[in-house]
């Protein structure tokens, strides 16, 4: 009987390490606020009494949970896209899904005047609905166009880039004809911002994330087989077209549902799978769940930075992810090339 000692222990340790980092970041996130990171608050957290506990449960807990589920969704979505498109550049942003989302939101705000509705909750919901619908239209366009072109990975990426530019152009057109207030509202919507978190949106995203994680048990090996090449995967009995189609729709759904509630949060979906693959290779048994975990870590970290770097101002987290993400990405690329 060949036993587990044949397996690399490295992968297991990295999984545990990422889990520990996630837990400590959640803890730091809960004790940081307008006064920066206050370590002595840890004891108050456990007591859960008075006004402090109201701040924690009404503001910090939803925000932290949102960072976790959104980061995980974006990370998982990016990992799936990069796997089925066999392209390290694939992410919700490069495939035009974020831009389509922004167009949907702008349309809701400027044309549909969603912010003039009675409650702010309703306004947010209508805007999110438009953003979601728009990004799913973008996905379906990519997939249906790609199907005609035999679903080759390269053509899908190029369709995504083209559609992203197309949607951006329409967003700008809308903004050009909008009045100042609406134009500002659309601009602010695009800054990914976790302060919009509410328990219902977190639950919705979390539920979708859980369903995706469970379906992963069935199909992760097909992603591995795809790594060996299109023909090899087919010879193993995999319908590669359907796999690509299905995974694209699921991954887009995952990122669209996050983006429509919280705005554009760049780089997390791109960078999280890269970090994971750098350390453990492309075995998707590990890449998929650990990309979700790394995505959560990145967004939790960015959120803590966004709340503490310019006290007492909180910067939208989308700005931080791109600011931190770009140099981090370059660092990992550099590290990989210097290793080879």
């Amino acid at each position: 009987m060949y036993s587990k000692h044949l397996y690399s222990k490295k992968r297991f340790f990295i999984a545990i390490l990422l889990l520990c980092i996630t837990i400590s970041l959640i803890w730091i996130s809960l004790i940081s606020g307008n006064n920066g990171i206050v370590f002595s608050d840890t004891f108050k957290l456990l007591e859960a009494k008075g006004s402090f506990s109201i701040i924690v449960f009404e503001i910090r807990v939803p925000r932290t949970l949102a960072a976790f589920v959104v980061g995980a969704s974006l990370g998982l979505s990016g990992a799936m896209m990069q796997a089925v498109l066999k392209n390290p550049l694939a992410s919700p942003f490069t495939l035009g899904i974020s831009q389509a989302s922004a167009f949907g939101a702008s349309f809701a705000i400027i044309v549909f005047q969603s912010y003039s509705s009675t409650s702010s909750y309703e306004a947010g919901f209508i805007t999110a609905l438009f953003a979601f619908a728009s990004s799913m239209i973008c996905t379906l366009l990519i997939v249906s166009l790609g199907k005609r072109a035999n679903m080759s990975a390269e053509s899908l990426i190029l369709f995504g880039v083209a559609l992203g530019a197309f949607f951006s152009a329409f967003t700008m057109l809308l903004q050009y004809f909008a009045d100042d207030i609406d134009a500002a509202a659309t601009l602010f919507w695009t800054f990914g911002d976790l302060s919009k978190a509410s328990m219902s949106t977190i639950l919705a995203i979390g539920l979708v994330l859980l369903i995706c994680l469970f379906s992963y048990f069935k199909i992760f090996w097909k992603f591995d087989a795809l790594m060996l090449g299109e023909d090899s995967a087919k010879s193993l009995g995999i319908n590669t077209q359907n796999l690509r189609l299905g995974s694209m729709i699921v991954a887009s759904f995952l990122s669209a549902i996050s983006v429509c509630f919280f705005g554009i949060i760049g780089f997390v979906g791109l960078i999280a799978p890269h970090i994971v693959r750098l350390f453990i290779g492309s075995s998707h048994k590990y890449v998929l769940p650990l990309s979700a975990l790394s995505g959560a870590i990145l967004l939790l970290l960015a959120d803590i930075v966004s709340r503490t770097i310019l006290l007492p101002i909180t910067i939208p987290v989308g700005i931080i992810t791109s600011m931190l993400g770009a140099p981090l990405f370059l660092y990992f690329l550099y590290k990989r090339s210097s290793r080879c």
Partner: protein
Amino acid sequence: MLKITNLHVKVKKKTLLTNINLELKLKDLNIIIGPNGAGKSTLLKSLVKVIDIHKGNISLDEIEFTTASINSVSKYIAYMAQFNQNSNLTTLDVLEISRRKYSGFSLREHDHKLIENSINEFALQKFLNRDIDTLSGGERQKIFLAAAILQEPKILLLDEPISHLDPKNQIEMLELIRNKTKEKEFITITVLHDLQNALHYADKIIMLKNKEILYFENSLNITQKMISKLFDTTCKLFWQEGHPFLFLGHSHHNNTNNHSHKKETNDT
């Protein structure tokens, strides 16, 4: 017996194979030879349904492949592709893929046993947790052969399994392929460019030229005339102690015998 009758393959209105008829037996190592673009790889790919067939019939004993789904065909056929790209997977990952089509997320004890046997047989212990992209061509080809055999197929299709290998590794690989074919009772079909090795190791030779079969013969019945016709070049073929010696094209030296003799004496 694998029976291919009247097979036609077309891709994007371009005919790639016409009128292929073959009957291949259990435990036979069949080697396809032929010029570039003759349709050698296409024949393998159409058998495993990577390429759709246009017309014709493929069946293994009573099992009909022509109308079966790609998933059910894959249970009988293992295919090793000609080119492999960077995959960033470890040796163990690659071996496990072969069993997952049967077992999914958690491999069963039976799968673990098969994988362990394969590791021992192919001497892969050293590379188990190594990224296959960092291994040498010979090691990688061995791993892919091990992975193909791990699928427990009835039919083994290998597309140029010894390209990029040095002579010793070529022979080792072909010995392995031949032995496994006899031992596990596969019907093996291999594309090979090395004619000497093809004649030496094959039971049957399939000669493909211009999208159709020129000859399908026992390897011992192959004549220099057939090979001349296949490659449109002059050819001399000798057999010595069960080894074929094959000379293609014209000699560039007037007194070739002298030359080779001189060299031999220098060496000793």
